[in-house]
């Protein structure tokens, strides 16, 4: 599919109902060595919503999440989290955001508990030990709390990464294909986590290739194709078959764009 042929997504459907969107993109461009990865994205996620981002490999999903996590600087345009600019207010944004990538990236020579305690200290949390214990219990790693991460399986390390991502109870949680390498029990845990945040009115942004899971967990959906928004709208309005066609290279129908996008 030629992304150039896609019409731009419409303005966010509920943006007018909240004065400060949880996430706002304003003509966001990100390029690597003059190669554009994000091509002028404009979007707003209202507060308290869960967003799932779909898109084929290379669509720009990870780059978008890394930009929101302050790990990548926009080439042009702006990205805002809770009204704070990810460049100008990076320090404040970092306090608000939690990030879990598709690679665990834990300190392998530290134990699971030490990893969580370390990050609790980075966020200045006074009750780090208590939080670490609760989170290890929650992600099913209590029995391995004192084992070095080097000895963990991929799935166990990813569970730890999940615990690390929420150690400071972030206002906005960014999950970049967090289901990679997780077993069924851990997947259920992940889904419970997202559902609980949804009930608490906290924002979660999730990328996944598991279409049914993504649509089940999210209120809103965003689909990226070659760095452009191909769909922005309610998750319930997007059916799995449509996204599968998108992955297969066909054009997508977006209710937000009033027809074929």
């Amino acid at each position: 599919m030629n992304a150039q042929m896609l019409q731009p997504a419409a303005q966010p459907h509920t943006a007018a109902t909240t004065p400060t969107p949880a996430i706002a993109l304003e003509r966001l461009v990100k390029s690597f060595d003059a190669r554009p990865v994000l091509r002028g994205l404009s979007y707003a996620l209202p507060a308290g919503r869960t967003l799932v981002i779909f898109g084929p490999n290379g669509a720009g999903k990870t780059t978008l999440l890394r930009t929101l996590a302050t790990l990548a600087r926009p080439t042009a345009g702006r990205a805002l989290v809770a009204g704070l600019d990810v460049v100008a207010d990076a320090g404040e944004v970092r306090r608000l955001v939690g990030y879990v990538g598709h690679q665990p990236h834990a300190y392998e020579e530290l134990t699971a508990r030490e990893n969580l305690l370390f990050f609790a200290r980075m966020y200045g949390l006074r009750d780090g030990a208590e939080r670490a214990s609760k989170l290890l219990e929650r992600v099913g790693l209590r029995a391995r709390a004192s084992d070095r991460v080097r000895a963990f399986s991929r799935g166990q390390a990813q569970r730890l990464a999940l615990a690390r991502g929420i150690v400071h109870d972030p206002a906005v949680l960014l999950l970049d294909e967090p289901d990679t390498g997780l077993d069924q029990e851990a997947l259920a845990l992940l889904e419970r986590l997202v559902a609980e945040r949804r009930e608490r009115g906290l924002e979660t942004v999730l990328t996944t290739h598991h279409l049914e899971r993504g649509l089940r967990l999210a209120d809103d959906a965003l689909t990226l194709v070659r760095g452009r928004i191909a769909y922005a709208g309610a998750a319930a309005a997007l059916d799995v078959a449509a996204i599968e066609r998108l992955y297969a290279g066909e054009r997508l129908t977006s209710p937000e764009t009033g027809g074929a996008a």
Partner: protein
Amino acid sequence: MSTQATGARLAWEQFWAIIWKDLRSELRTRQAWMSMGLFALLALVVFNFAFDLRVENLATVGPGALWIAFIFASILGLSRNITVEQDRGPMDRLLIAPVDRAVVYLAKVVGNVIVISVIEVVALPIFAMLYNLPIIQPAIAPILLLGTLGVAAVGTQFAALAANTRARELLTPLLIFPLIVPVVIGAVRATEALLTPIHDDAPWLGLLVAFDVIFLSVSAITFQFVVEE
């Protein structure tokens, strides 16, 4: 809701937490210590054989051999410390946390100084024995500390810079060695002045202090541009 440390107190706690994390990891693997220690020992032994054959006055050559061994060994450890963190991605996760990059840099420098100092403490008596020089004396401590701090200050910054490149094994020493020439000169001359009766009024320790202060200050400010995209 948990209470949170903020401001200078938070930075102080983060500083020590990063040092603790790096030293804990090193204590468990001892990889840097093993490679650095073996390299320093081998260099001192090889230099000793070479100088034994050609040089009469070891006191004038010994300090050079000592610092070359320390500096080359240090580069091994410095490069490993930062590369492991950046290669395997935990640095990304650290950078997402609200921690000032200057705090990360200074903590890494102090951690590296501690790791290198352990090698120096072990290697110094071996050097004294091999070269038969009275180097174990209190006055060597500030020279070692200032020289090591200079090497760690430059090494931490440029190992981080080179870690993002494909040719990092080549780039790291290429970037570091030219910049630490003042440290080499200052440390070698100050050590030599300690071991020889020749009176040397040049302020070698002052040179080391000035270098350390300037490089630590500049690097603390610029480290964010090295580790962030």
